[in-house]
Structures are given as structure tokens and as C-alpha cells.
């Protein structure tokens, strides 16, 4: 990494999303690259956990950032970038769900896509270096968590995903979804109650966790 290139990267790396977006408005593609690097993974996981299909999540991820590119000229610095970004992503997810009428979690045996070579949800889940029994247990837990998420209503699921995985304040979630803040908190409470019942069998495991 050359000094000039690295210096430019380091200079932008710590800048706020809004500053980077304004820089991209002026033609600095490097700023957009930093934004993409910073947000592509959390956006992808939000979409994936919302729609429940990796192939669909990849398409929607690309669509989300393409809309960011298209809307760059109209972006105003006063607007919070993440609020705008996740509004786009969330709306795409809602539209996709309405098209697919997908409201349940996928079956363990159901293939992820139509390709015969594709694996099931079990194969998609990442695995680290650990003992096989623990690995199987973790995979089982992860599947259970995905299932439980899938059983939430879309309204509850999106609130839960934004708060729990994106650490987005309730006020920002309300801006993204377009409902009052107390409605967001109410949906969150219902989501947590439902998940608590779904995952009651894992409560002992949860107690051992930090």
C-alpha cells in the first residue's frame, strides 16, 4: 500500500458517514468505497435475516446501494446517512416480502435456491474451529434462532433486527419505519416476548452466556 494511497484511505476512514457521502457527491469515489466497506455487511445481514433467503438478500443488497448511488445527488448532509440507508433497505425488504408472501422461516431441508448444488440453511451457516459436538449444537441453536426470527411478524422482526443487530436507537427506527417511537417500543416488547417463549428451552444455555 503506497503512502499516498494509504494516506488517502486513512484520512477518510475515520470520517462520518455524512461527510463521506458529501465527498462522493463531489465525485470522490473513494469515499463511497469506504461507506460501502463500512455498511455492506450489516446491511446484508439485516436483509438476510429479514427475508430469509441468501440469494434474495444479495440482490437486495446490491439494489440498496445502487439506490444510494442514484440518490447521491439529492442527499442532504443534514440527514443521517444510516437512517436513509436502512430506510432504503427496509423498504426493499418489505416490497420483496409482499411479492413473495414469505412469512415463515425456511425449513431445514428446503434448498436455498433452485440449483441442485446449493446447500440447505445448515450448509450456509458459518462454522469456526471447534469440537464437532459443540459445532452441531451451535448450528442447531443458530437454526433455531433463525426460525424464531422467521416466526415474528414483519413489523416485529424489522424492529428487533434494527435494535438488536444494528444498535439503532428507537427514535431512528421510528424514522426509518415511519411510525411513532412508542409504537416501535411496543412492537419490540411483543417481539421479545414471543422470542422468549420460542427459545425457552435454551434458557439454561443463555444463563451461561455473558
Amino acid at each position: 500500500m503506497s503512502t499516498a494511497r494509504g494516506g488517502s484511505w486513512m484520512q477518510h476512514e475515520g470520517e462520518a458517514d455524512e461527510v463521506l457521502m458529501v465527498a462522493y457527491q463531489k465525485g470522490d469515489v473513494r469515499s463511497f468505497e469506504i461507506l460501502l466497506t463500512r455498511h455492506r455487511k450489516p446491511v446484508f445481514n439485516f436483509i438476510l435475516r429479514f427475508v430469509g433467503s441468501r440469494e434474495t438478500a444479495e440482490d437486495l443488497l446490491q439494489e440498496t446501494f445502487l439506490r444510494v448511488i442514484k440518490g447521491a445527488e439529492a442527499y442532504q448532509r443534514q440527514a443521517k446517512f444510516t437512517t436513509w440507508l436502512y430506510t432504503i433497505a427496509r423498504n426493499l425488504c418489505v416490497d420483496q416480502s409482499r411479492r413473495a408472501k414469505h412469512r415463515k422461516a425456511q425449513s431445514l431441508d428446503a434448498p436455498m435456491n433452485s440449483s441442485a448444488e446449493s446447500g440447505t440453511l445448515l450448509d450456509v451457516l458459518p462454522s469456526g474451529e471447534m469440537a464437532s459436538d459443540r459445532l452441531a449444537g451451535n448450528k442447531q441453536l443458530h437454526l433455531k434462532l433463525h426460525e424464531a426470527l422467521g416466526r415474528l411478524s414483519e413489523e416485529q422482526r424489522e424492529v428487533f433486527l434494527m435494535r438488536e443487530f444494528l444498535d439503532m436507537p428507537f427514535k431512528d427506527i421510528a424514522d426509518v419505519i415511519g411510525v411513532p417511537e412508542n409504537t416501535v417500543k411496543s412492537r419490540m416488547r411483543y417481539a421479545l416476548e414471543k422470542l422468549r417463549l420460542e427459545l425457552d428451552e435454551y434458557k439454561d444455555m443463555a444463563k451461561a452466556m455473558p
Partner: protein
Amino acid sequence: MDADRLMALLYGELDAGDAERERAAVAESPEQAAELEGFERVRSLFRELPDEEPPPRISAQLLAEAARSAPAPRKAVAASREDGFWARLVSWLSPVQHPGFAAAASVVLVAGLAGVLYLRKGDTLQEAGRAPEAPPAESAAATGTATDEAPLPPAPAADPAVVAGQADLEGAAGEAQDRSRVTSADAKAVSKGGKTMPSKEKSLDLDDDVFAKKKREAKPAASSKKPDTLRGGTVYGLSEQEMMPGDAAGGSGGAPAANQAPPEPAPAPPQASTPTPAPSTKPSTKARPPTATELHARAVDAALDKRCSDVRTIGAEIRSIDPEYYKAKFAGDKRLKACLEVPSQYPARK
């Protein structure tokens, strides 16, 4: 405890004082304490859920599109098109604001006006002793000669309006106004049989040529920039099919993917949806798209000015129009190496 307070407490959105009070209230209620504990367990379970990594090809495609659609170069063109006549005129004349252009234009203008004055003085002297002649412009037009080559038309002798017009011209202020005065003065001469318009048109043509030249000089700066995808037939200047992820790009992963082999979702169509490559319409007023060699030269200039973002943008453009040139010459140019080198992409982030 209502959902509002409970969720705010659970996720730390209460200030210190309120949080302390709410915890005390929960501690006094076994039901609320159990509920809160249950919610905490759920959260701890979901913290174990690992994040998944999106495929690198998506990032490569997005970066290519971002480079192609960078908003700033189109903004000036779009603004000039969307604004009114004066805004467009200002944008055309913007190069004239340079002192050099302004000086050159002034010299040409003064020379043209001086020429008109000189010629009309001579006509005035000649007119005193002979009858008006047939309109030379008509004969010139009949024979197909250019207006510039038409002989000077007669002008009335000692016409006060003409004299006043000449005085105004010598002042060289408000050329359009002067033009109108001269024209109106000459209209009186026309009534005597002469046709003076050609000479005035000659001076007008001279001025128009100056502006036309400036317009042509200004045009390449706008037209050579990235196409205005907003004006294309599709939202992104590309069909949505072209921008959707495909397998043609290959699964090259890792850091070099974005710069080495960004899959171009639309190798040919972008030009079809943009106004820039239109040689068949107005070749005299629109510049051809820059070649890879020209872009390479610009990139070298940018690298010397340490404008690495411009270097990379130009590189993406070269790669889209001539991938072979990019591989053979651009990517290996030592002068651009500092700007083109890519750090390990996708640093580990949470």
C-alpha cells in the same frame, strides 16, 4: 411498567437518574424482574448469531457503478439544462470569463467594429456622388457566394442616424444595442435601394463566430464527462437487467477484485442511453468521446497533481471503454502506480 419505559431501560436509552428509578421499581416487582431477565436471555442468545459475509463480486460491481455514476460531473450539465436561458448562456460563456478569453474577445470585437466604421465611412464618401446600386447581397446569394464576401452596400450620405450610430460604435459599449442602432440607421438607407444588411450581418457574423467558437470550446468539457444517467431511458442509465448481479464477472474474491476485474454490467448499452456519443446529429458542436489514450494522459496529469481519486475514476472509465488498453498500458504505468495500488480491501469490521 409500560413498554416504553421497559424497552428504554433494557436498551440503555434512559438517563442515569431515570434508569436508577426504573431498576428500583423492577426490583420491587418479581413479575417485571422475571420479564426483564427473560428479555436479557433472548438478547444474549442472539448475540451468538454470527454475521454472514456478502459475496465480494457485489462490492466490485457497486464500485464500478459508483465510479461510472459519480454525481459531480453531471451536476453542472444538468443544472445548465434545467435552468433557464440565462443560466445556459452563462454556462456556455463560462470559459470567456477567463481573462485571456475576455481579452481576445474584446480585441476581436473592437477590430470588427473598427472595420465596420472604416468601411461605412468610405461608403458615405462614395454615396455622395453616385446613385444607389443594386443590392449586392442578392447577387452574391444568387451566385452562392458567402455573405462575408458580398461587396459593401451603399449607405446614405450624412445621415444623422448613421452618424449617431457610428459614434455609438466607437464607444464600443453594449454591442447588441449598437447593433440595433446601426441596423435601424441602415434601414433608412435600404429605403433608397441599397441593402445594408449584409455588411451588418458581416459584423454580426464575426461576433457570432466568436461566441460560437467559445461554445465549441466549452462543449467538450461538458460532453466528455460521464453521461447523465438520469436523462437516460432507465433510472441508472443502464437497464436494470444489466445491473443485476450475474455470474459473468466470475467469483474472484479478495482485495484485488474491485480494481482488477470489476464485472461491467453493461459493456455496450451505456452509450446508447446517453447523449454524448452522437456524431450523426451535430458533429460541429459536440466533441467525440475521449479515447483511452487521452484519458490515460489525463490520469497522468492527475497523478502528478496527486489527485488519486481522479486517477482511479479515469481508470475505471478506461477499463470500461477499452479493457485491453487498460491491462496493457494503464495498469502498468509506473506514474500511476501510487494511485492505483489498493490496500487489503474489506478490512475486518464489526
